């Protein structure tokens, strides 16, 4: 049961060798205890991200991306969610050993989260200026006037036009794209080292998505933060990520530097996803379709969880869960037949 320990340290980038990762999640496990049974929503997830680096966590809905992020942030809905194992090492300390008070201080100040639905994460009856300013008043004890000035500064930083005039406006008075910028501003307020963005542009139109992603990438570079970008969009990932972790049924099935993953995936699920997407630059005939559906997490298939849908399935896959194989520098795959997959077998 300790195969996740096999997850290798990245050896690909010089920076990653020189300094320990900003965040190192090891063998994380979360389950939801519900009437329908125990759902292992996160089932041994390991990933890490360094300062100045963008890790994309890619997966279909229900694969456990958000729950992993909630566990890292310490905002897991509990009950019904329970953290049943693993470590979350942030700047050298295992967060799971910290006292609640300490944990809360880290949240917001050192790591911050951006959610998909900005409207429901902002307070509808408080002006955005008040909400931004409150962060400075609470965490840094600055005066109201000072807090407001800092709020304007932040709004300018995320390129809200006429920030000074709009600082007193309420969330509903802003467009979806601008609200998401305000969410980014809130996340940045206290100068965190790590940002977790959970589907930050999924609800936005493409032209607005492009603006918001550009802003996020620019700020991340400028402030050399670590960024975990959670998404199901293979296009967005290709645009901004340094490394990718692909999730399926509560597990990471493949981790790789972005260029390598698109060029030669080492897991049949990743390959299936890449083959299924229609392309803007190609007319193409019939789309490849992964057969079947993602599993119900209260009854994940034995052996390899992907085996009922996998074109390469063999007997061993039905009984033996594949360990996380190291398949190259900074690359892992949870597939018994990663080599064949890497060589192009479909």
């Amino acid at each position: 049961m300790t195969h996740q320990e096999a997850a290798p340290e990245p050896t690909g980038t010089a920076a990653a060798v020189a300094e320990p990762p900003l965040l190192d999640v090891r063998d994380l496990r979360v389950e939801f205890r519900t009437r329908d049974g125990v759902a292992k929503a996160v089932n041994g997830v390991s990933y890490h991200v360094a300062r100045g680096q963008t890790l994309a966590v890619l997966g279909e809905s229900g694969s456990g991306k958000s729950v992993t992020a909630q566990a890292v942030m310490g905002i897991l809905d509990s009950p019904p969610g329970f953290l049943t194992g693993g470590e979350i090492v942030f700047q050298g300390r295992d967060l799971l050993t910290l006292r609640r008070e300490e944990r809360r201080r880290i949240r917001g100040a050192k790591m911050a989260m951006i959610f998909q639905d900005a409207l429901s994460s902002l307070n509808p009856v408080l002006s955005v200026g008040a909400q931004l300013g409150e962060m400075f008043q609470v965490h840094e004890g600055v005066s109201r006037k000072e807090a407001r000035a800092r709020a304007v500064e932040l709004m300018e930083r995320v390129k809200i036009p006429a920030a000074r005039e709009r600082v007193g406006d309420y969330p509903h008075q802003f467009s979806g794209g601008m609200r998401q910028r305000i969410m980014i501003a809130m996340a940045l307020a206290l100068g965190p080292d790590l940002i977790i963005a959970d589907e930050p542009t999924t609800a936005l139109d493409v032209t607005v998505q492009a603006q918001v992603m550009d802003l996020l990438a620019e700020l991340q570079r400028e402030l050399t933060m670590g960024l975990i970008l959670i998404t199901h969009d293979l296009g967005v990932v290709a645009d901004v990520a340094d490394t990718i972790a692909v999730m399926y049924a509560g597990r990471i099935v493949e981790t790789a530097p972005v260029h390598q993953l698109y060029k030669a995936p080492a897991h049949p699920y990743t390959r299936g996803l890449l083959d299924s997407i229609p392309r803007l630059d190609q007319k193409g005939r019939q789309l490849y379709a992964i057969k079947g559906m993602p599993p119900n997490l209260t009854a994940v298939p034995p052996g390899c969880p992907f085996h009922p849908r996998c074109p390469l399935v063999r007997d061993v896959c039905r009984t033996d869960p594949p360990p996380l194989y190291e398949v190259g520098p900074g690359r892992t795959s949870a597939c018994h037949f990663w080599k064949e997959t890497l060589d192009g077998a479909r």
Partner: protein
Amino acid sequence: MAHDDAGAPSSGTPAPGTPAPGAGQPGTSAPGTPAADSPEPVLEVRDLVKHFPLTRGVLVKKQVGAVQAVDGVSFDLHRGETLGIVGESGCGKSTVAKLLVGLEHPTAGQIRYRGEDISTLSGRALKAVRRNIQMVFQDPYTSLNPRMTVGDIIGEPYEIHPEAAPKGERRRRVQELLEVVGLDPEYVNRYPHQFSGGQRQRIGIARGLALRPEIIVADEPVSALDVSVQSQVVNLLERLQDEFGLSYVFIAHDLSVVRHICDRVAVMYLGRLAELGTDEQIYEHPTHPYTQALLSAVPVPDPDARTHRDRILLAGDVPSPANPPSGCRFRTRCWKAQDRCAEISPPLEVPAEFRRTPGPVRHPSACHFAEERTVVPNG
């Protein structure tokens, strides 16, 4: 209902046509009409307008304006073809869909089915036409009544059109439909919550097929689905089209899916069509700035494309359709806008400079300063 801008098409007149050399009777062709050998249109939409009144006051309602959700849209749909309508949220796509299937009544304009204007029909005549134009809805999670069984949902159209299937035969028909869309016929007695998103979308498609329509208007049929399931549903729609000779109006905001499934594409912005053409014309030879910006904003699933892509970042947001800009509606975000753009609304027609140019740049584009710009790297 007067338009505040000069060039807006007035209802009743023929759509600005493509002067396709030697083809088509004058005055009846729609913009973007394909070559002369394509089959006759099953649907002709002309100067379609839908304004939703904006009212103020509780007891005495006073109209204070109108949301110009659709404001002069014209296109043809040919037999067996798939016409895509793309555009950003709120541009009027769903309103067009609802007008086409009769869920909304147009403020002005015509929708001709096999030559007959269905917006003037009523009673039995209208009902007969409606049978042939069915809709598949956007959201598989909310568009199915949770208290109805799958059998009742798929068979519901037979309640409205009892002549389509005798009572005793309906259950068998429903089971057949389930099979056609790749679901187990034994599922008839289950409820929607027992199905995944992809399965629910199949149920919606089965219902759309129940009356054996000629035309299916699909409003974002795959937008709520995950990629692995989305491709299953896209393939299903394509198979059904071949099998039943269906014509589709396929509405989506995902330009990659539209390219994959559509023969022709209409790009919509703030209630009007900006550009109309074949998939090659729109994706490889766009001439309207909005189309170019829209295409360039789509993230390409290829990390190597990061460096050599032509990205156009639009400033600002889409203006409110209750108070659209005068002239060209795109002008507040357009980097090429000139004074003329604020004064004269550019009609949707082949731009003068391309009328003599053979090849794919010659297609309707509602821009005074249309020019070709290739933004999608060739794959």
